[in-house]
């Protein structure tokens, strides 16, 4: 039985097991039909031309991993960012871990999707927002069909949340192969501000495939800073589907740091539904071996006077492959749009590949849109300059690569997080130097 059939038959069991209000139930039933119709994407789909899921889909994944894996704090301590006081929503093999988490209902809701889906007091929010941003593409649909657990964050009006929220998904490898489908819903009401850090971490070398969906709603003048740390093991793959709907004057940024993992596909979609909206999409990818990272972005400018800023940097070694497909749509009504897009890449091996494709669809006539992609190597004259000052080749290269990524890093607003990422980069480049002086 292939994975699609397995998922379709599992859905019947899943649907019978869950008690859920009819709205969500209907959404799920529609979603599974959609997935059944569309199936997994193949290279024939334009949006998947450079990323093949074939090999990944051959694994015999456990769709409902065994429950209750006792994970102690000391086992996973190093994956937390400690030096900041934060809320934590922690999952182990797709199940919520209450003793690792730190949730709240005190003035804001930082809790579980399962609770929100089942309790009447959340019904209104669920009916207003659940699955209202996600598309009906095959993988988001698959997630929607099985949506049960994940993070639920609701920030009421006028709240500035000082503590960042960490969402971490651990997989313990107690199944030979695991498929996870976390579902996050984040609603940030008017004039509120929140910072969220998300990561996925496998703790063994057993294969993991995560197909995640995150819906973010930023209301009028809301500010959301979202950071994705993708530093998983070489056997873990991630398909991240993130959908963001922004209202008037809201400011949302998503930073994606991709260092680990076997195959990562980021489908990041911004919809600007108001005037004077600001959207930022930035990423640093540093990979080697046979790793594959694909950034597929969409910014949909619907209303006038909005901005979007995209800046993706990639460094590819060994036989690694990168894909960047950045689509910007500017509707006819969206006059005075400022849309910028940059994708810069460095190939440090002859066998590494980058496929980069900007895609601009502009229907308005009074806009400023720019895009640029570059593919290059490290500057030899800069390397010699650094080496002539006593910096060895490896360190000189690392410093240059760090500098190359610095534009993206510099806009990370949580210093402790920036420090953590800097350390991961130093580790990734195999050097022991402090970049951030």
């Amino acid at each position, binding site marked *: 039985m292939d994975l699609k059939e397995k998922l379709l038959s599992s859905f019947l069991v899943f649907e019978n097991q869950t008690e859920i209000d009819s709205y969500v139930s209907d959404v799920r039933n529609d979603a599974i039909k959609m997935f059944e119709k569309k199936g997994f994407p193949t290279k024939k789909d334009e949006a998947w031309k450079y990323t093949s899921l074939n090999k990944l889909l051959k694994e015999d994944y456990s769709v409902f991993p065994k429950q209750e894996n006792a994970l102690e704090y000391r086992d996973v301590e190093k994956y937390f960012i400690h030096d900041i006081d934060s809320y934590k929503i922690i999952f182990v093999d797709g199940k919520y871990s209450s003793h690792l988490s730190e949730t709240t209902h005190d003035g804001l809701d930082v809790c579980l999707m399962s609770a929100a889906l089942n309790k009447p007091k959340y019904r209104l929010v669920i009916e207003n927002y659940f699955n209202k941003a996600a598309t009906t593409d095959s993988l988001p649909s698959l997630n929607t069909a099985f949506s049960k657990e994940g993070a639920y964050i609701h920030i009421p009006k006028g709240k500035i949340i000082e503590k960042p929220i960490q969402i971490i998904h651990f997989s313990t490898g107690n199944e030979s192969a695991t498929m996870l489908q976390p579902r996050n819903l984040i609603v940030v009401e008017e004039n509120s501000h929140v910072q969220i850090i998300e990561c996925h971490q496998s703790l063994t070398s057993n294969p993991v495939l995560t197909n995640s969906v995150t819906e973010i709603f930023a209301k009028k003048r809301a500010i959301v800073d979202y950071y994705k740390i993708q530093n998983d093991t070489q056997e873990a793959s991630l398909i991240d589907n993130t959908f963001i709907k922004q209202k008037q004057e809201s400011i949302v940024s998503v930073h994606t740091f991709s260092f680990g993992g076997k195959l990562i596909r980021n489908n990041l979609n911004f919809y600007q539904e108001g005037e004077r909206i600001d959207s930022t999409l930035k990423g640093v990818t540093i990979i080697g071996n046979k790793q594959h990272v694909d950034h597929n972005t969409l910014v949909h400018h619907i209303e006038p006077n909005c901005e979007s800023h995209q800046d993706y940097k990639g460094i590819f070694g060994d036989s690694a492959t990168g894909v960047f497909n950045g689509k910007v749509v500017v509707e006819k009504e969206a006059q005075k749009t400022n849309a910028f897009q940059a994708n810069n890449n460095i190939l440090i091996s002859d066998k590494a590949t980058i496929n980069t494709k900007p895609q601009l669809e502009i229907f308005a006539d009074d806009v400023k849109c720019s895009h640029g992609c570059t593919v290059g190597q490290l500057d030899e004259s800069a390397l*010699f300059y650094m080496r002539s*000052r*006593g910096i060895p080749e490896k*360190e000189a290269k690392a410093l240059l690569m760090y500098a190359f990524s610095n534009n993206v890093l510099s806009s990370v607003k949580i210093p402790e997080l920036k420090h953590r990422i800097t350390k991961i980069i130093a580790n990734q480049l195999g050097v022991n*130097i402090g970049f951030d002086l």
Partner: protein
Amino acid sequence: MLKIENLHAGVEDKSILKGINLEVKAGEVHAIMGPNGSGKSTLSSVIAGKEEYEVSEGHIIFEGEDIEELEADERAHKGIFMSFQYPVEIPGVSVTNFIKTAINETRKAKGLEDMPAKDMLKLIREKSDLLEIDRKFLSRSLNEGFSGGEKKRNEIFQMAMLEPKLAILDETDSGLDIDALRIVANGVNKLKSKNNAVIVITHYQRLLDYIVPDYVHVLHNGKIVKSGSKELAHELEEKGYDWIKEEVGA
């Protein structure tokens, strides 16, 4: 300190240096002058260890050791420093971070611990004052958007921080106005001691009014064709290089 014997070097098939002999002792200042294309910059690059130059014959001996096989960073660790004619812009790396990394990597190569942050700061303050460098300047990206004078001052600042045994100043005077030239030269003079040596590579005599050489060598067509005292520099300034070319029959 430095002994160059019958050095032949070039790029790919093109031979540029055709038998250089030069000896520099501790405490000395040597000036190497010559017309454009005579091989001045090649000579400094070859001593510093730039890979694209191929040494086909001869030796470069630094403190008794043949350094030909050493990488540029290993030569730097031994105490060789070259001030670049065209310092490279490196966006995203601050002057401070760069020099800190350079110092600590050099210490690491010598088996020493990193310099404590406090000492580093003190040293940076001291040396930037010496070169009359504004502190704000130190947090800027290395050489990015620097004026010609700022770049050269920054080179000498790095030299001051690294305290090399042998400093090669490659056309340090080009692109400098008279004030910057004075500051740079003053910096070099303050760093000079009986234990280190300086090679000044220049087209013009101007810098040598400030950094007074013990010896002046004239490089022409890949060879040192004439050596003398500082008076030779004045003579070149007055008469140009043509008389030398005639003298050596080139």
